[in-house]
């Protein structure tokens, strides 16, 4: 019944490719901006390879450039990445049978794109015992591409005039839109997402990215509430 590890790993790499197309420009602009903010080459490589958290790396570099103190940057990292805890909770039933030598790398690799690319595979192959190989394939492919893109930004960004103003960061928004839209197929999901969208604008000026947390949690609550109030027939 189960697919082979090799087949699932390769399928994971293939499923990661569309999201990598969006991640690469974002990684390039990160490499460029980090140097502009005053980090050296190894520190920039360190952020992408050791922390491996696109949006948090972006936020941190912006805060370093603005002269923010260390404690606030670490706090912002916590807030910006807190959503990964939600992804972990959602994948928890699917990884609990694995030994720690699997859970540790799978945890390290748990970013938005990896979750978005591998979670549907768990739903599709519900009883497959090797689904963690798909997860690993997505994660490894994204990790390598993110770090290569950072290197490109480091070594070519400085030579290309004004690359920081090109708007390569739009790639992140395009990717996220592509990941969100397919979910908007019923009232609870639409209600939750619209709530998050509205609150994200209203709370944007709150300090330390706290608006992101408020918008996300309230949106989830609204989606859940609509689901509870609707009859099953209305949901489709």
């Amino acid at each position, binding site marked *: 019944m189960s697919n082979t590890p090799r087949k699932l790993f390769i399928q994971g790499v293939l499923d990661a490719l569309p999201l990598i197309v969006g991640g690469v420009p974002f990684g390039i602009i990160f490499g460029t901006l980090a140097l502009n903010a005053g980090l050296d080459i190894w520190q920039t490589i360190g952020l992408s390879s050791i922390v491996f958290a696109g949006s948090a790396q972006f936020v941190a570099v912006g805060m370093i450039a603005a002269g923010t103190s260390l404690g606030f940057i670490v706090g912002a990292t916590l807030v910006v990445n807190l*959503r990964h805890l939600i992804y972990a*909770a959602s994948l928890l039933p699917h990884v609990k049978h694995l030994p720690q030598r699997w859970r540790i790398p799978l*945890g390290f690799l748990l970013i938005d794109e990896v979750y978005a690319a591998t979670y549907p595979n768990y739903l599709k192959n519900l009883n497959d015992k090797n689904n963690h190989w798909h997860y690993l394939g997505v994660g490894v492919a994204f990790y390598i591409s993110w770090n290569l893109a950072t290197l490109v930004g480091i070594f070519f960004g400085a030579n290309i005039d004004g690359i920081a103003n090109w708007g390569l960061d739009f790639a992140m*928004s395009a990717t996220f839109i*592509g990941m969100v*839209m397919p979910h*908007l197929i019923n009232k609870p999901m639409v209600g*939750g997402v619209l*709530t*998050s969208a509205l609150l994200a604008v209203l709370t944007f000026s709150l300090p330390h990215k706290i608006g992101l947390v408020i918008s996300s949690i309230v949106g989830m609550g609204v989606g859940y509430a609509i689901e509870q109030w609707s009859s099953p027939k209305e949901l489709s």
Partner: protein
Amino acid sequence: MNIWLLIALMALVTFTIRYALYARANAVSLPSKLEQALKYSAPCVLTAIWIPAVLMPQGELALSLDNPYLIGATVAIIVALWKKNILLTIVTSMACFFAYKWLVL
């Protein structure tokens, strides 16, 4: 500031968030209501990130044709809903974004 200390702390915080539940996966069981609510998490969180990036690229609401992020995002939304293909969504919306930014503005 000690950048390497910052990187170490950021890595620690980030890894802890991602791994904490996995670490004790056998001992943790989530309430079923929470599990139901979690399916809304990714779309809501991602939207809370991209909406301000697109509507307020300079930190203030920019609902005008001078905002290429708004144009690109509109294309992305239409293509994503219409074709349901993430690669096509990313490629066409980025092409429109850059074309608009350089050729129109």
